């Protein structure tokens, strides 16, 4: 066995102790993971350029020069201008009525304030560019693209010493990004929270590894224990990308009610549906997802108009902290998230479990 089986080329590239990447929207989680020897990527897709700059400074002030990453959603397609505005006025009455029936059946409270969606203009190319420019100006150590290809920004990033990671759901996306010189690829399987591709983690990771050459591949989707970490390394990955694992950590800013739901959930308690936003994403099951999965439910509307229907439910549930209604993006590995621990402890537990699994494997083989 190697001296340190968890020392991978990803560790060498980033100067980190453990090949564990936390994807989180919570700065406190990010800082805790980084200071425990892992790596963290902060999701900033919803933030303005000024907010992103402030968050970068906040993190830098707390990690003593260690590296970190920022994740943005780089769009890969956009509808022609005007098409969506036209549809806005055409949400069918059947859909409005179905949403109203859910609201009545489950006594969903009204949101306490204006629905956030109506104040947020969505993310278009211009906003994405403005966000990316902050990362370039700030010379963040790692820029991660959570959906579309980051290739167009690659040269500008490398000139500034920024490493670029791309998240893919298909091998052909990985092939193109590897050929363009992306520094690492996150191969995300169907098990993952939020948006995913159609391939399972156990299939996409080795397939992407097989075409990646020396480019480090990071396994994502369902990774919530050290055994998953060990398995990912056996598949050829150089590290793991984890999200659900941190939602119920002590530092996480997720509502305590949702944390308790996450801790109680099993892998069967997630839903892969487009009924919240019009785009498929994996979340904890809730009355909204269950009602829209019934045969008599109307056809789901495209993004962002399904979100117009669901946002009243989502925000009403969150504003009034209704445990029976609330949901959160969560991967199928959520069943292994059973206790609320400090993020630092989660890192160390992952490492211990992975080393034990690797030792058992080596012993068994030998």
């Amino acid at each position, binding site marked *: 066995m190697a001296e340190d089986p968890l020392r991978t080329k990803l560790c060498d590239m980033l100067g980190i102790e453990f090949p564990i990447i936390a994807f989180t929207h919570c700065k406190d989680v990010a800082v805790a993971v980084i200071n425990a020897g892992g790596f963290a990527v902060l999701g900033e897709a919803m933030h303005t*350029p000024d907010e992103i700059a402030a968050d970068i400074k906040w993190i830098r002030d707390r990690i003593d020069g260690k590296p970190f990453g920022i994740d943005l959603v780089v769009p890969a397609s956009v*509808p022609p201008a005007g098409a969506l505005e036209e549809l806005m006025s055409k949400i069918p009455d059947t859909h409005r009525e179905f949403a109203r029936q859910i609201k009545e059946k489950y006594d969903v409270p009204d949101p306490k304030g204006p629905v956030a969606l109506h104040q947020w203009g*969505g993310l278009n190319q211009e906003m994405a*560019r403005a966000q990316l420019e902050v990362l370039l100006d700030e010379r963040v150590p790692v820029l991660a693209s959570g959906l579309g290809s980051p290739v167009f920004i690659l040269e500008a990033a490398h000139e500034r010493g920024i490493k670029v990671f791309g998240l893919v759901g298909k091998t052909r*996306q990985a092939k193109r990004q590897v050929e363009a010189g992306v520094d690492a690829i996150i191969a995300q399987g169907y098990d993952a929270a939020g*948006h995913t591709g159609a391939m399972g983690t156990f299939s996409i990771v080795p397939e992407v590894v097989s075409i990646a050459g020396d480019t480090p591949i990071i396994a994502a989707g369902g990774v919530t224990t050290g055994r998953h970490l060990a398995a990912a390394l056996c598949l050829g990955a150089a590290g793991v990308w984890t999200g659900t694992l941190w939602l119920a950590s002590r530092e996480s800013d997720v509502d305590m009610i949702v944390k308790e739901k996450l801790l109680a959930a099993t892998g069967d308690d997630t839903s892969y549906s*487009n009924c919240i936003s019009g785009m498929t994403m994996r979340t904890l099951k809730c009355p909204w997802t269950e009602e829209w999965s019934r045969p008599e439910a109307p056809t789901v509307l495209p993004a962002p108009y399904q979100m117009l229907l669901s946002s009243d439910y989502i925000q009403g549930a969150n504003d009034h902290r209704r445990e029976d209604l609330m949901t959160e993006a969560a991967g199928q590995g959520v069943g292994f998230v059973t206790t609320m621990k400090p993020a630092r402890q989660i890192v160390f537990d992952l490492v211990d479990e992975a080393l034990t699994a690797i030792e058992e494997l080596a012993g068994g083989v030998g």
Partner: protein
Amino acid sequence: MVSRATAAREGFDPEMAGKRAECDGGGHIAGTRFAGRQEFTGTLTGEFVDQGDPPWRWYLMVDLTRKPEGYPADAVWCESESVFILGDESS
């Protein structure tokens, strides 16, 4: 900063015009902190827009034979690195 990012130039690439292609698309989900994937199959017109500096190229795809259920338009702008020409093994 933003002006540098948003300047756009339109153009036409005859090499791409008329080609059948797939687009591994998607983007941010308005009102959330998440993103979603959307897949399209159609024909490239050859029209493109280069946005910003460095240029970020987008191709127009029409005659969509595959699009997300309920997608409201007959066309989509696809980011160039997310376009895969059908029958082109190198893509």
